[in-house]
């Protein structure tokens, strides 16, 4: 093979189209170089470089938003760029930026190495962007594994805490299991699609390509091997989004992980899972009669389990983990409704935006209202927050209100869009379960607000016992600006969705 032949074969590898994945990964590498080059006392500036670099990338991405919108296949059909992909790029970049900001607050209390944390967060975010844009099972699996391996490390990052290590081990075992299930599904699909005896005419790309999988399913919607593969692939993705019956790891891992990582899992990993699920739902669309019942049962069970299990929690990290499970259920309803009307996806995307903004407001407050042991965050620790830290309490109330779906806030609009889509799709049973779930969720979200704001309802400390000191971290100005912006965004997006919703609906 000579050089020119190699060149023509590689002509489709258009690296410049990988914006911001490639710069983000390079920035991550640059951090490691800085750690080697800079003298030790200047190491504190490396997180600042990470955050400012991500802000610069975000600005560049937003300025150049239209540039990446054209639908095209690059890298020999491994990637498919689309407006949806562009939306997820912005979402993941904002997520990794916010995780980095929370990471600075959280790591300041620990004596752990710092730079690696930001490096891994950025690499994982870049891999998430590739995951939702993948158009080929090889790319899909490699990107998914990069995300998962990154999370194994991030979850067990605070290694002096036994709960963090335990969470890392649990996530490793469950992640390996889910990867195995997913891989088995991919192999079965590959076997069915690659079978020359069944190949419909006109499959040009390999049997791993999403387009040829879809073509095959159109020709043979009742192929048993392919159906088995579809169920297994959906199960593998359901592990990542924490949908019932694959939610078993969620509470322990969310509790043990450092708080910024919990936020990354809750928002980033879930959004990546849903991005992948939306892509796969399109690929599996010819097998609607199989996919819709599977997803419907999952969605109903997820909403009920998440909300009922969250009712009994006193540890706020477990509470937010289980409520996150129920949010995955609402999002699943949106994905199902999209089979009847593709416009339902705009509801899913808006819900993800609202969920990101509200979750990071809550996680930001959680990062400040905890001590060195990040797994130990009880509702009691929030006592008198409104009196001592009115700013944090206000942000918490807005964030929780948005998660609960209280009217003027963004979370309400997200839920409304998904419920309207479910109504017009005729999913009345799921809609009923979802409304019931929202009513249950108000109880535990407001229990948290009550713990933070209304000291009169607190149990009195028994006489003779010392009042326990409450862990609080002072809010520095960068975190103050971030939390303020998130709270304001939750309110503004609830009252005025502006061009976002127009753009989402126009697609």
């Amino acid at each position: 093979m000579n050089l020119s032949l190699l060149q023509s074969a590689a002509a489709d590898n258009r690296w410049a189209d990988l914006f911001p994945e490639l710069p983000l990964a390079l920035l991550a590498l640059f951090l490691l170089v800085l750690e080697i080059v800079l003298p030790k006392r200047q190491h504190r500036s490396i997180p600042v470089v990470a955050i400012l670099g991500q802000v610069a990338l975000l600005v560049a991405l937003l300025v150049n938003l239209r540039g990446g919108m054209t639908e095209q296949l690059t890298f020999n059909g491994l990637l498919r760029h689309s407006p949806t992909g562009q939306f997820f790029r912005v979402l993941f970049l904002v997520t990794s930026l916010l995780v980095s900001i929370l990471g600075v607050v959280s790591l300041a209390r620990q004596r752990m190495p710092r730079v690696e944390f930001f490096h891994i967060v950025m690499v994982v975010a870049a891999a998430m962007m590739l995951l939702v844009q993948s158009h080929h099972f090889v790319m899909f699996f490699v990107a998914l594994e990069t995300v998962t391996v990154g999370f194994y490390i991030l979850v067990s990052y605070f290694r002096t805490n036994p709960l963090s290590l335990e969470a890392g081990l649990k996530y490793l075992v469950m992640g390996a299991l889910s990867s195995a299930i997913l891989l088995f599904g991919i192999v079965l699909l590959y076997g069915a699609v690659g079978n020359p005896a069944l190949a419909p005419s006109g499959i040009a790309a390999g049997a791993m390509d999403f387009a040829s999988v879809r073509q095959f399913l159109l020709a043979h919607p009742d192929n048993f091997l392919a159906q088995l593969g579809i169920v297994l692939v959906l199960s593998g993705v359901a592990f990542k989004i924490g949908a019932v019956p694959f939610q078993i790891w969620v509470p322990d891992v969310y509790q043990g992980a450092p708080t910024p990582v919990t936020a990354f899992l809750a928002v980033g990993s879930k959004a990546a899972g849903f991005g992948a699920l939306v892509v796969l739902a399109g690929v599996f669309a010819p097998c609607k009669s199989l996919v819709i019942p599977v997803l419907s049962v999952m969605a109903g069970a997820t909403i009920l389990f998440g909300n009922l299990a969250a009712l009994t929690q006193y540890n706020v990290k477990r509470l937010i983990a289980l409520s996150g499970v129920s949010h995955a259920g609402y999002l699943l309803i949106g994905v199902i409704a999209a089979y009847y009307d593709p416009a339902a996806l705009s509801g899913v995307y808006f819900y993800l935006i609202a969920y990101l903004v509200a979750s990071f407001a809550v996680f930001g407050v959680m990062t400040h209202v905890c001590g060195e042991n990040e797994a130990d965050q009880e509702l009691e620790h929030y006592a008198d927050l409104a009196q001592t830290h009115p700013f944090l309490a206000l942000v918490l109330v807005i964030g929780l209100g948005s998660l609960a779906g209280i009217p003027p806030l963004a979370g309400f609009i997200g839920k409304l869009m998904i419920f309207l889509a479910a109504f017009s799709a005729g999913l009345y049973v799921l809609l009923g379960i979802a409304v019931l779930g929202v009513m249950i969720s108000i109880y535990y979200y407001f229990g948290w607000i009550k713990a933070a704001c209304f000291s009169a309802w607190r149990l009195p400390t028994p006489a003779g016992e010392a009042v326990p000191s409450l862990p609080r971290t002072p809010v520095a100005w960068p975190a103050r600006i971030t939390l303020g912006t998130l709270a304001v965004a939750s309110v503004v997006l609830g009252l005025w969705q502006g061009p976002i919703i127009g753009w989402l609906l126009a697609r």
Partner: protein
Amino acid sequence: MADLLFYVLGGVTLGTAALTVLSRNAVNSAMFFLLSLLATAGLFVLLDAYLLAALLVLVYAGAVVALFLFIIMLLDMQGGVRPPFTRATIAAAVAATGLLTVAVLGFVKRAQLSVAPVSPDLPVVGASLKAYAAQLFTTYLLPVQVVGFLLLIAMLGVIVLSKRVEGLEDIK
């Protein structure tokens, strides 16, 4: 001849895999696992996937099982006494076996496993190192680069989670 070899190798793979789970001594388990992998590599050879067979032997049999043996040696694991199964475990095992039987029966009955005869001149990408490498460095260049990052963060993770840090009290 090839059919007979297939059944022999398949039987060895399944039998040793079962013994891996069933044997009480951890070293025996690791050794049966090794045999199972070697038989699987034999199956790949029957499919003309020589590269895959060689990689399986080198990576799994060579590196992974050796690692297992090191860990077994370091932890000094003996067989030990297995606690008796609880009622719940037995119920779960019966249910799982039933489900698995139904699944396998459904698979055998309904999967259209009939395959058209493959023409012998069909290119087999995984067979030769050269064809495989050409694919890796042209079509699949992006996944290769991403795997590079995967390995990098995995290495960083090992360092972060195990390196001795000054003033850090690790749990024993």
